[in-house]
């Protein structure tokens, strides 16, 4: 790797995973922020930049900063869906490199399971050309992509199920995971169809949960109680908003965000020891692996077959149990970062990937609309 070490992740924490009955999104973010600052050995007064994404306020960083009692001199509430937090890490690293601030707090909170924000079925602006047809926006769009991938490459439901089964094996090693009982490929195939070809067990969980990540400058990061996890490279891209405007349903903008992150980090695919890849659905992972270049277009099915991504497999992936089995509160991206950092800190106990030095963390947002890739490394 040849990346300049400018910024590092120095603290991570989750809060309220699973069901957080009675809690609100500010509470979950405050709890995660406090725990992440403790993890870093910093206090709220060290925070001079605040990042969050959510649709719980018209100006979320204003509301959150007031609630937390901090006065950031830099804020960013970029919302590109589930990949927002990988983008925030990139933005924070860029801001630190520009000398604008030293310690960025990135948070997320959701009560998607116990107190979901009402979906109004409104048809705002460009939504008027899609909503009236009744496609359940997220799962329906990913189903359209899966069907097209199967048509072009002969990908099978069994291959998609391999991802769900392997991810559940990781979850069984993580006491924080929401679903831990083992499943087999037949369980996935026999679960009810939601939007063909996707079954219930091809789909992520719906849970509550909060998370926080602290990004600090090299100067701050070098003097803390835990070893820094360096941000070696990052990249961000987007290709569409509505699914009808996705140019090719089998290729995501991971192709661009991944290439940018690899180039900045100066690492090769072979050097990635552990991958945390957004798994809103099994097909999300398969498309992402191809678009990131871990295999060729159309070879994603073969790549994940034979439980290659499971514990003990050649390609350790989604080691906390993923959005499929650990938690998924709506915008899951922050939890990918948390797990990537813990793996590089050797904090993962039973599920620890031995000698992990470099992690790839990749978020996908919207309906395969946005992607953001972060490559992390330890000293």
């Amino acid at each position, binding site marked *: 790797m040849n990346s300049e070490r400018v910024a590092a992740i120095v603290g991570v924490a989750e809060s309220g995973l699973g069901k957080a009955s009675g809690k609100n999104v500010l509470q979950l973010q405050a709890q995660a922020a406090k725990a992440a600052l403790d993890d870093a050995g910093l206090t709220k007064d060290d925070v001079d930049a605040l990042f969050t994404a959510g649709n719980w306020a018209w100006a979320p960083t204003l509301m959150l900063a007031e609630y937390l009692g901090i006065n950031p001199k830099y804020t960013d509430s970029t919302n590109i869906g589930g990949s927002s937090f990988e983008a925030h890490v990139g933005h924070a690293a860029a801001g630190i490199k520009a000398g604008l601030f030293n310690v960025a707090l990135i948070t997320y909170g959701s009560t998607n399971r116990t107190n979901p924000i009402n979906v109004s*079925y409104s048809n705002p602006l460009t939504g008027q*050309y899609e909503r009236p047809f*009744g496609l359940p926006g997220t799962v*329906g769009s990913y189903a*359209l992509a899966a069907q097209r991938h199967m*048509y072009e490459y002969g990908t099978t439901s069994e291959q998609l199920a391999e991802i769900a089964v392997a991810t559940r094996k990781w979850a069984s090693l993580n006491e924080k995971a929401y679903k831990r009982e083992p499943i087999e490929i037949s369980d996935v195939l026999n679960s009810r169809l*939601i939007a063909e070809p996707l079954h219930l067990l091809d789909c992520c969980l719906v849970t509550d949960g909060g998370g926080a990540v602290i990004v600090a400058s090299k100067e701050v990061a070098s003097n803390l109680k835990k070893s820094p996890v360096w941000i070696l490279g990052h990249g961000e891209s987007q290709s569409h908003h509505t*699914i*009808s405007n996705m140019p090719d*349903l089998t290729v995501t903008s991971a192709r661009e965000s991944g290439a940018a992150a690899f180039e900045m980090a100066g690492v090769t695919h072979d050097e990635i020891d552990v991958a945390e890849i957004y798994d809103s659905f099994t097909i999300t992972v398969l498309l992402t692996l191809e678009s990131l270049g871990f295999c060729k277009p159309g070879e994603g099915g073969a790549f994940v077959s034979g439980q290659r991504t499971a514990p003990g497999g050649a390609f350790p992936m989604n080691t906390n149990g993923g959005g499929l089995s650990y938690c998924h509160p709506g915008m899951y991206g922050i939890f990918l970062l948390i797990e990537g950092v813990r793996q590089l800190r050797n904090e993962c106990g039973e599920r620890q990937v031995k000698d992990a030095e470099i992690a790839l963390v990749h978020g996908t947002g919207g309906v395969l609309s946005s992607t953001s890739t972060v490559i992390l490394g330890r000293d």
Partner: protein
Amino acid sequence: MVQKIQDTIDEESRPFWDGLKKNELMIQQCDDCAKHIFYPRSICPHCFSDNISWKQSNGRGAIYSYTTIHQAFGPFKDDVPFVAALVDLDEGVRMLTRIVGEREQIAINKRVKVTFHQLKDDLVLPYFELE
């Protein structure tokens, strides 16, 4: 609550929705680069020209992808199972729609033609059926 499409219609989208009521599928074409445009907008996403004209699509195309929906939400939950699809019109634009007719016959790349589906509240949607 379900917001009525009528409440969303504005100057930019009205020709599309009005066309459907006359059983015409209206799309746009850029007067400068000649590319077709859907959904309607005031500037060409290809060349950024603001010389845009409306024209009637021939209403024919091919299925790019489709999915049979078994769980839907809100006003659509009793429609299941139904087939949602992306259709590539012959003019070169793609739209989200539904495919009606025999579900077993539906497949990617099959030819389809528009069929106008009257909803009860004075709204017509462009669905497609196999040719």
